[in-house]
């Protein structure tokens, strides 16, 4: 097992995930090595069930690997408990989900404020408003998610992900629930913001056109990267 690379924001070494179900054991990931450098945009492509989302969860420290190790922002995930991992993610890791995952009880601005308040960031409201402006939704600041279209919801989610200025952003099928035109806009926004913030982007998708706009493309098949 090799030591992590100093410049990598996220690295997987010999990563494996095996689950036991009623129908017997199932290997989702096996012997996977991956390194994502600072500011790099990496697309992980693959068919449904190929293990893309599992890999994303492991890289972000949301799940435990059954083999190998994961490093995130210079920390070995296995060395940290649940709260330690949360603290590690706090302010350093952003997420964009396929289902947007905005808190339905909070307005657009309050959704963006949430991670800033969790990290106790000074000038949180100003930062949230800047993020809203950056995604072009200043006028929608007081709207609740249910009052926004799918594209608008995803823009709020992107603003929420970038507002704390993370080192790495994980995006799980960010255009999966959107039409083609809206999807294009979202991708533009994701990549522009990544460039501005200098953050790494790990993008899970099965959309080839979207993958082509990233620095590097990795294909997943049967739990392995090709």
């Amino acid at each position, binding site marked *: 097992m090799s030591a992590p690379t100093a410049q990598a924001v996220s690295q997987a070494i010999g990563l494996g995930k095996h689950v036991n179900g009623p129908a017997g054991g199932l290997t989702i990931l096996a012997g996977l090595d991956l390194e994502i450098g600072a500011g790099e945009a990496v697309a992980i492509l693959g068919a449904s069930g190929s293990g893309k989302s599992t890999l994303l969860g492991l890289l972000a420290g949301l799940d435990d690997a059954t083999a190998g190790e994961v490093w995130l922002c210079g920390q070995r995930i296995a060395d940290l408990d649940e709260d330690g991992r949360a603290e590690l993610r706090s302010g350093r890791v952003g*997420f964009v*989900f396929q289902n947007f995952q905005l808190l339905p009880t909070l307005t657009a601005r309050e959704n963006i404020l949430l991670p800033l308040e969790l990290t106790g960031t000074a000038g949180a409201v100003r930062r949230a408003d800047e993020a809203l402006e950056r995604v072009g939704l200043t006028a929608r600041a007081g709207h609740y998610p249910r009052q926004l279209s799918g594209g608008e919801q995803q823009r709020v989610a992107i603003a929420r992900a970038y507002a704390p200025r993370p080192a790495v952003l994980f995006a799980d099928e960010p255009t999966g629930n959107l039409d083609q035109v809206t999807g294009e806009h979202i991708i533009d926004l994701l990549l522009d913001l990544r460039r501005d913030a200098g953050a790494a982007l790990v993008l899970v998708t099965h959309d080839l056109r979207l993958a082509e706009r990233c620095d590097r493309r990795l294909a997943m098949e049967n739990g392995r990267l090709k």
Partner: protein
Amino acid sequence: MTTQPWRITLRLLRQDWRSGELYLLSAALILTVASITAVGFFTDRVEATMDRQGSELIAADLAVESSSSLPDTFQAESDRMGLVSARTLEFRSVVVADRGPQLVQIKAVDPAYPLRGQLRLRDGFDSPDRTIAAGPPAGEVWVESRLLRLLDIGIGDPLGVGDTQLRIGAILSDEPAQGGGFFNLAPRVLMNRTDLEATQLIGPASRVTHRLLLAGDARTIADIKPWLTARLPPNASLVDAREARPEFAAAVDRAARFLRLATLVTLLVAGAAIALASHRLVERQTDAVAVMRCLGAPRHLLMRVFVLRLVLFGLIASLLGCLLGWLGQAGLVAALSGWFPSDLPSPSLAPILVGVATGMIALLGFAVPPLVQLAKVSPLRALRRDLGTPRTSAALTLAAAGLALSLLIFWQADNFALAWKLLAGVLGALVSLIGAVLLLVRLAGGLAGRSRGVWRLGLAALARRPSGAVLQIAGFGIGILALLLLAVVRVDLLRAWQDSLPVNAPNYFLINIQPHEVEPLRAFLRERDIDENELYPMIRGRLIRIAGREVKPTEYENPRAERLATREFNLSYGEKPQPDNRIVAGDWWPDAKAPPQFSVEQGIAETLGIKLGDELVFWVSGHEVSGPVTSLREVKWDSFNVNFFVSASPALLGNEPATFITSFHLSADRESVIPELTRRFPSVTPLDVDAILKQVRQVIDRGVLAVEYVFLFTLIAGLLVMYAGIQASLEDRRVEHGILRTLGAGRRALLSSLAVEFTAAGLLAGLLASVFAETTGWLLAEQLFELEFSFNPTLWLIGVFGSGLLIGLAGTLATYPLLIRPPLQTLRRAG
């Protein structure tokens, strides 16, 4: 990491409220607190009112009673504390008119008498009653009408009282404090205390009952009690308004028990609603928590935020509940303004503290376990919805709810026996409810396999989510149970209570009936269609030894025991116990020939320390009679039937000289029978207890009304639980219906399957609730209220079918909006 849990808490709380997520939980919590505080405020006032009515029976809030003159310091201290006082002296004497002398019971009173209640006077035999809250002026006496008849005199005539002549000013129809027992009452004469000296009737050795009557606010009365108790002379005792009449105390006690029970039932039902609402809240918050965990919120921060959020929410909801409770009791008091005296005492603020504490305990007990689980939500759920909601530990849920329930029940019940029974009942009911629901859900699953179409879909929906179905049906069951219990208590138990004092309860007692008058009197009553009760022999006797120990009044610390030990008992004998008596220990004698033995009323046995098997020795007619105690009886003092503390077998007292006593009901329009009776049987004394009877009936009626009102809260809690039950499965249903509709299921088919599912759940819940309601009703009637309970078949019909219909309809209507929404929208919302 610097965190701002307060800020996040406040933001989330505000948003929770705006989004409506907390409505159900708030409603359940506010209702719990409102019911507790409304009952708290209301009972505070009702009990004070009832005490005041008790006060009317002794014409004061507190009385010091003594066989010798009372120390002046007593009056001085009561004056100092700001209490109102009046002195009375009561004694037997002979008054004289032209026709001759007559033994009477004289009470000499201060002008301030009565301090509580009013006197009812008449200015002639046929004049209407008028009320007055003052004693007779100097030089005047007010007398009972039978004295006028016995002496053949009228109003305005002089009456010789000792060495002086006093003018008869009015007929005394009713007096709040009739004093003494019901028996041996000669006609009553009320005179002014300042005239007493002129009569020269009272000497140092006279047998006089001196009373110092006191009235004032409850706190001062409570304050002076210990002061007086510490200084009471050996032959004096305190008479509390509540101890004034056992039959009155029994009615007040029952009312209090009903009210406490009503509060507890509301608490239990609302607790179920809180638990269900929390469960739903957790389901709806899971995604948000997963996202927050993803964004880096550590567990301890989330826990702090949740606890703060819960405590803040609990405090706000509890205070709102207190406000509602206050309005609730004020509304009731306003609605019943005609029933209560105008100066109903205001409640204390203690119920607010009790309400807030109850709200917090209920919230922590029922809502914390599911909410604690929220902190355990895996952040991975933000990526994978199939991970579901973390399961709440059943042990933790039960332990927390059990602890909160026990705490609240023991605290609120204020009665260990009641609390234990209720707690055991609730736990037993819960375990059997869950067991029965599981069994029935399995049965529904089996039926689903054999049915078709909408039936299959509906029944399978029940069986598919066993834990959800258990929760839902248990919720419905508790809701329906609350409604049925309401019916049982409202209709059956309260009616049984009212029936315990039937409309034709005896309102006249006849005493001093000589043995040779028994048969002619019976014939006299029969000729006038008066349905008399049995005539019972009555023998006076003083208790001198219990199990070989001398009965010394000074050895009893309990003032009641001391009083009982000093006075003569009215003993009776008979072959059978009185119909409303219940043997609670030992056995009644088999027949008239049984060896000498006693049966003692259990309350007095407890007070005097008499146990089964103890040898009692009474001093009767100049000699000792003795026998063992072979049974203890429970007596319904509020039945107004003739009853005795001590009864003996005929072999023991059958040969002693006795007078007889009976009681009967006489309607108001037939009161002319009484003068006729006194003329035919001059030595027989009729006693009119109508006024006391009316007061007790009033207490019962007011109590019933209060209980019904308090049960309104239970009713709302029951409906809330059912609503929570329907809401509990809404999230699952959203997805299910979206999919089914996408697959081509028509609205009508889905609606029918919903109707089948909810109706089946309603029928099951109704069946279980009916079983529990009847059992609870029976247990409560027999064990707690000592009332006759009869099983009610209509309750079963209404319980089962009404529940099926109600829940079928409500559930279908509540879920209907899911069906009219386009399937994609439904699926998207759930996705």
